[in-house]
Structure formats: structure tokens, C-alpha cells
């Protein structure tokens, strides 16, 4: 009698047990998900979630194809009102935003978007926010750190923040060439702010890098002779077009 009663509910019970197994397995997977795909830890807006949801597994390819379009826009320069730097800027930014939604590890898109916001749209603060999002999603991207440092330095005139960003850029990479570029920028930022001792300190650090001692000595000599100082931007203005 009990067995018969049980048999009636057996199907439902088994299905429920299997569903519980599915939920349990999902919980187990969730623990390791960020290790397998660090996009899982990125905070997306609801709009980004919808775009990502519709794109499904082809979102990487979609980001690549949009990047091809962005690349075309960025390089298809034309003179607008006598200004060669005004290309198809308006069309470019939404595409860049889409790319970063689809693939938050698209460092080139963050770098280009930040540069465009700062130097083509004249919105350095928005550019810094955009760069910061990129840095959060790609902590080891030296390109973004030097990019935001450049905006901090030339447009926001915050040499201290700029120098600290470049210092960070030099610390996230083991590539000596990238480190040299970061140090080169840091030394110029420090000199621009009148910190000769700081600049010398940076060049001495460059001198300890294998293969860079002669270059470092050259710049140390230049500083000693009062050279190697970048021209200060005019008061109240920044370098609008790098």
C-alpha cells in the first residue's frame, strides 16, 4: 500500500532530487567560476547584461568585429572645419562602450576610448573614469595606467596622481621596454612639476635595468645641464591633440 502510494510520487520525487543536484552543482561551480573566467567578477550594468546575454558565447567575436569598425573610424581621418583630428568621433564612442561590455578585457578599446574622451571630446574627468573602469577589469594593463597618467598630467595638471599612475604601470609589468617607457614618462612628469631630484631618482632606477644604463646616463646629464625639461603647457590649457 505504502509502496503503491510512493510509486505515484516517485517520478516527482526523483525529478526534485535531480533538480537539487543541479542546484548543488551550480553552487559548486560558482565557487570556482571567477578563477575560470574573471569576467564573472566584473560588475556589469543591467543594459550590459542584456547585451551580453543576447550575444551569448559569440560575444568575443562580436567585440572583435566591432573593433574592426572602430579601427576604421579611428583611422579614417578627414579634415572637419580645418581640424584633422575630428573624424567620426560621435560614431566611435558607443561602439567602444559596446566592446567593453562584450569583452571587459579588451584593453585596446579602453585605451582608445579614454584617449578619445580626453583629447577629442575634451572630457578628461570622464576619460579618467573610463580608464579606471578598464584598470579595474585589467589590473595588469600598463597601457591604461600610462594613458590615464597622460590625461592626469597634460589635461588635469595633477602631476602627483600622474606620477603615481606611471609608477604603478612600471610595477605591473616585467617587460623592460614597457617599464622604460613608464619611467621615461614619470621622469618627464616629475621634471614638469619641478621635481628634479625625483626625476634623477627615476633615471637612476632606469640605469639599473640591463641595457638601459647609457640612456639613463644621457638623461641624467641632460638634467644636470638644465635640459630634458618638457615645455610647460600654456596656463589653463592642456595638450588637446597629442
Amino acid at each position, binding site marked *: 500500500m505504502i509502496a503503491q502510494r510512493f510509486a505515484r510520487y516517485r*517520478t516527482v520525487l526523483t*525529478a526534485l532530487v535531480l*533538480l537539487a543536484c543541479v542546484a548543488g*552543482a551550480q553552487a559548486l561551480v560558482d565557487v570556482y567560476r571567477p578563477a575560470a573566467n*574573471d569576467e564573472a567578477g566584473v560588475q556589469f550594468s*543591467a543594459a550590459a547584461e542584456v547585451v551580453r*546575454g543576447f550575444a*551569448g558565447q559569440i560575444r*568575443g567575436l562580436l567585440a*572583435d568585429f566591432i573593433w574592426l569598425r572602430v579601427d576604421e573610424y579611428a583611422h579614417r581621418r578627414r579634415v572637419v572645419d580645418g581640424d584633422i583630428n575630428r573624424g567620426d568621433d560621435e560614431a566611435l564612442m558607443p561602439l567602444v562602450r559596446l566592446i567593453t561590455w562584450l569583452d571587459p578585457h579588451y584593453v585596446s578599446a579602453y585605451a582608445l576610448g579614454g584617449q578619445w574622451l580626453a583629447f577629442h571630446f575634451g572630457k578628461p574627468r570622464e576619460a579618467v573614469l573610463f580608464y579606471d573602469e578598464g584598470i579595474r577589469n585589467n589590473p595588469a594593463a600598463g597601457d591604461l595606467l600610462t594613458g590615464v597618467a597622460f590625461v592626469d598630467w597634460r589635461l588635469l595638471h595633477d602631476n602627483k596622481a600622474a606620477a603615481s599612475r606611471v609608477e604603478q604601470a612600471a610595477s605591473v609589468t616585467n617587460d623592460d621596454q614597457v617599464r622604460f617607457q613608464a619611467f621615461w614618462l614619470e621622469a618627464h612628469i616629475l621634471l614638469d612639476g619641478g621635481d628634479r631630484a625625483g626625476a634623477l631618482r627615476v633615471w637612476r632606477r632606469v640605469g639599473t635595468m640591463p641595457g638601459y644604463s647609457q640612456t639613463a646616463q644621457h638623461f641624467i646629464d641632460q638634467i644636470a645641464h638644465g635640459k630634458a625639461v618638457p615645455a610647460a603647457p600654456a596656463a589653463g590649457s592642456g595638450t588637446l591633440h597629442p
Partner: protein
Amino acid sequence: MPASVLVVARQVMREAWRRRTLPVLALFGCGIIIATAFLSFFQLGTEIKFFKDVAMTVIFLFGAVATLVLVSTQLSGEIESRTIYNVLSKPIRRYELVLGKFFGALAAIAVAVAPMVAILMFFMSVDQGGSLLEAVKAGYMLWLSFAVLSAVALAIASFSSSVVCAALSVLVYVASYLKGAVIAYAGMVTYSRLAAGAAQTFYYLLPNFENFNVRTAVVHNAVVPWAYLFRTTLYAAALSAFFLYLGTQIFEEREF
């Protein structure tokens, strides 16, 4: 595993190759991946990323289409062409038939997907484009997602026609990707605990194909932990078992 399951599985594989759909899809996929390897219009330094993205997408798309074409024409195809009467007149149980179809489809899909993964690995090794082991892992994860898709399609095929089965399977797949957006919106539009609880329940109970997506690891040269592979395999097994159980129960109840 009962011998009848193996017999059905072997039959599914043989039929898959006889129909030519799977080999043609696999050939097309391989062709696209090879052609992409020779495209150099992308900017310096990102060609290999672009190639890996295209290859992973092609493997996924062609694998998913192959799975749907193959599985949706299995049970419902047999019912529509009335060959099911012949099959069920043999000493075979209905659940064995469903399991045989499932394992046969898995084997056929593996054979179709393997050459595409091999080509991806070949060009990765030529261009020094990252770890080959990660490419194998990604291929395995995609195959797991096809296994779950097969189980879903078989469950739907047990009560519907092949066209409806293919359409509903695609719908389940899309819904599984959109649930992230639904949960995000639920969190935005309401602070109700009930809604949040319902969203969480949805999250844990609906199939989550995003679990099998390790494209980022392959494309950005990261490492997929073995523990993740093991847990995802468990997840695929649990989900497949659930849908196969549903399918067999519905199929057992059907009268022919």
C-alpha cells in the same frame, strides 16, 4: 551499460554520417577556421586573439547546429517516419532507446568537433598563441555544453515534432543566457525579498550554459583550474540526468 543502449548509440552515429549533415558542418567549420588563420587584416598583435575568437565561435556555432540537427531528428524523426513501431517491437526498453540516442549523439558530436579543435590547436602552436592544454579544456567544455543541449533537446523531442524541438531547444539556450539580465533587472526594479528569492531560484534551477564558456581563458591566455573542469562536469551530468529523466518519463507515457 545495457548492450541495447550501445547498439542504439552505434546506430545513431552511423546514421549521423550517412545523412552527411554532420560531416558537411564539420568540413565547413574546419574551412572557416583555416581561412581565418590566413586573414591578416587585423592590427599587429591582435591577429592571434582574433583567430582564437573566430575559431572558438565557429566550434560553438557549428557544434550547436550539429547537435540540434542531429538530436531533434532522433526521437521525433522516428515518430514522424513511423519507424518507432519497428524499434519498439524489438526487445528494448524505452529508456534504453532514449539513453542510446543520447550517447550516440554525444559520440557523433565529439567526432565532428574534434577536427575543429585540432585545427585551432595547430595554428595556436604555429603562432605560439597560448597553451594548447587550455584549448583542449575549452573544447571539452563546449562538448559538455552540447551534451546538456542534447539532453534538453531529447526531453523536448519526447513530446514534440522535430521542428518544435529544435525551436524550443534554441529558446532554452537563449533563456539560459538571458537569465543574468533578468536577475540584474529584478534587482533594479524591486527590493522585494520574494522577487530576489525567485530570481535566485531561477538562477540555480534553469540551465546555465555560461558555466561552459571558458573562451576568456583561451583568448587571454589564462588557466582554467582542473577543479572547475571537474565541477562543471558534475553540473553537466546532473543537468543531463534531469532532462533525460524527464524525457524518458514522458516517452514512457506516450502511446503509439
